[in-house]
């Protein structure tokens, strides 16, 4: 599904990603761990096409096609979703309107008809239940005044609504209380199918108790320095990252 080959990327002329290689197949869950500032969020930004970052070398293939030159909304239409580490507030724009605009634009770029109002409301209700989200939140403006945990839940709610092929969850577990982690993880697991895949960026082993990864990668100084299975996460929890640094 996703193939990243020797990816180099920089921001404001500073190189952050220094040759990332990663392959994610359908049905797989990958975890990416690594020290602060190692480039995890940058990798997520580059995959999703954030124009603040520049690809200086290498290629990102999605379902066999290079997406290097696609606009972020085109990548979204291909089925790539990012749960932001720091979700953005959009004052005055209700979640309902935002989601409707989002779904309809995604549908449009796939040549589908807009969603009907009743279908949309039904979908909202169903997905809110799935992740046990407070009904009030969707009537409020996008992330405005949401608590840290509510913002993260709201990201997963959007993921549930949009049903992406590839979901990248950037530290979605940070700031969530223990119950919320379980709920969110539960949601992610329920949304899992043999046809989609996810990349979980996290600092904590705990999330991986709930969502069992097929692979765990360690990103350090812009490169993947180690790949293993879920045992690697346990090892990291115990030993930290120093032993991996060259």
């Amino acid at each position, binding site marked *: 599904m996703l193939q990243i080959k020797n990816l180099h990327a920089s921001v404001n002329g500073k190189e952050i990603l220094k040759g990332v290689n990663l392959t994610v197949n359908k049905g797989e869950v990958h975890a990416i761990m690594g020290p602060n500032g190692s480039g995890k969020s940058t990798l997520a930004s580059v995959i999703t096409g954030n124009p*603040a970052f520049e690809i200086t070398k290498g290629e990102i293939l999605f379902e066999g096609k290079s997406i290097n030159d696609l606009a972020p909304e085109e990548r*979204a239409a291909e089925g790539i979703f990012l749960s932001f580490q720091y979700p953005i507030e959009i004052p*005055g724009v*209700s979640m309902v309107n935002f989601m409707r*605009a989002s779904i309809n*634009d995604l549908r449009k770029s796939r040549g589908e008809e807009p969603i009907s109002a009743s279908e949309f409301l039904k979908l909202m209700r169903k997905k809110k239940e799935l992740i046990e989200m407070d009904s009030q939140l969707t009537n409020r*403006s996008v992330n405005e005044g949401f608590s840290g945990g509510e913002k993260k839940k709201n990201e997963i709610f959007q993921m549930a609504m949009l049903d992406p092929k590839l979901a990248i969850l950037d530290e979605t577990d940070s700031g969530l209380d223990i119950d919320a982690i379980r709920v969110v993880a539960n949601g992610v697991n329920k949304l899992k199918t043999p046809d989609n895949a996810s990349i979980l960026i996290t600092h904590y082993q705990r999330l991986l108790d709930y969502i069992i990864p097929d692979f765990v990668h360690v990103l350090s100084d812009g490169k993947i320095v180690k790949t293993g299975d879920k045992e690697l996460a346990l090892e990291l929890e115990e030993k930290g990252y120093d032993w991996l640094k060259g």
Partner: protein
Amino acid sequence: MSDEILYEVTSSEYKYGFTTDIETDIIPPGLNEDVIRLISKKKNEPDWMLEYRLKAYRTWLKMEMPNWAYLNIPEFDYQAISYFAAPKKNAPKSLDEVDPELLRTFEKLGIPLEEQKALSGMAVDAVMDSVSIKTTFQDTLAEMGIIFCSFSEAVQKHPDLVQKYMSTVVPIGDNFFSALNSAVFSDGSFAYIPKGVRCPMELSTYFRINAANSGQFERTLIVAEEGSYVSYLEGCTAPQRDENQLHAAIVEIVAMKDAEVKYSTVQNWYPGDKDGNGGVYNFVTKRGLCKGEGSRISWTQVETGSAITWKYPSCILMGDNSSAEFYSVAVTNHHQQADTGTKMIHIGKNTTSHILSKGISAGVSNNSYRGLVRVNPKAENARNFSQCDSLLLGDKCGAHTFPYMEVSNDSAIVEHEATTSKISEDQIFYCNQRGIDTEKAVGLIVNGYAKEVLKKLPMEFAVEAQKLLAITLEGSVG
């Protein structure tokens, strides 16, 4: 309410830029006393009206165009335009007598003049060039004692009311444009709500400029008697032309004891093309008088059109415990210029005013808020809160805020807050990541920014206004 409105963007062009091909009675360009006599004669006006016009004209001759606004107004030749243009088939008695071409025009603009087709709960006075074409639901309203008709009709049928209230809020010599309007005004709307009556539907005037090289000078007068209520809407469009068109209107509102008047405008005159050619010069004087105790006036405006806008809907809070509100969204793109705001004059005791202004600038446009809050010496316990926000799209446009405060009573509490912000790249990327392209994202973010004002508008207008905001800003980012 806004949540129920589907966010959508239609087309990027000024879709009202067509002209209607009808026979027009237009007088030759130029302005002098004979022209004024001619206008008055064409309208079959009583002598007092002609005297009023001539007095205004003589006043105007002594005045000069104001230049304090933050606007770059090219020399305008007042002798080069025609001061009276009217569709030839005049004063229809029933809909059958209205030129079908005109009906089609208003239909195309989304303003049906056939009552059975009309938007529910809205009475419309349609004004094309200088003349009122048709006022709907007059009979229904008359049963409640409400008068809603064209200004010309009011001059003929209700001369005492017109004489009693006309110019009591905006004096002839108030400013250059009010004097000009008083001399040459051609038509407009008149509304009178009797004591204790709650007007059951929105009253609406729809202005349309059609004839080339003509000015449009309408007058609106609204009188709300004790304890009455009315909500009034104003919309406007003009064809796309290379030359500039002049529009100088006057709106006067009088609210008696405990009366409430809400006046909403969606101003969408042709703004000129993206290089700054053509467009309407919109120089408007709007003022409300809270005459009685506990009276209330609110102005809500969404200003997206015109090449130049010069407009300060104001309130005089004369009655004790009266209150006034001004809610404004002004958008400028390309070469548009807007200098708009309000004046709140506190005279009575315990008066309150609230100002909320949201400016949005894009392209190489300039957008200024200019507001005056004056508290007179005897205005005990006056209260004002002003919030003026500016949103910038790009770095070639300008936003300016000019708040003036003149407080002569120590018990007054006057507060002013101002912010300037830009749409952040993070917000755009967040929308993009959810599949929303940048142009739509801007529309969405801007509508969110303006929401507090938009939600003050009646439903149909709010939908239209949301679309307009998005359309006005298309092509402003990239």
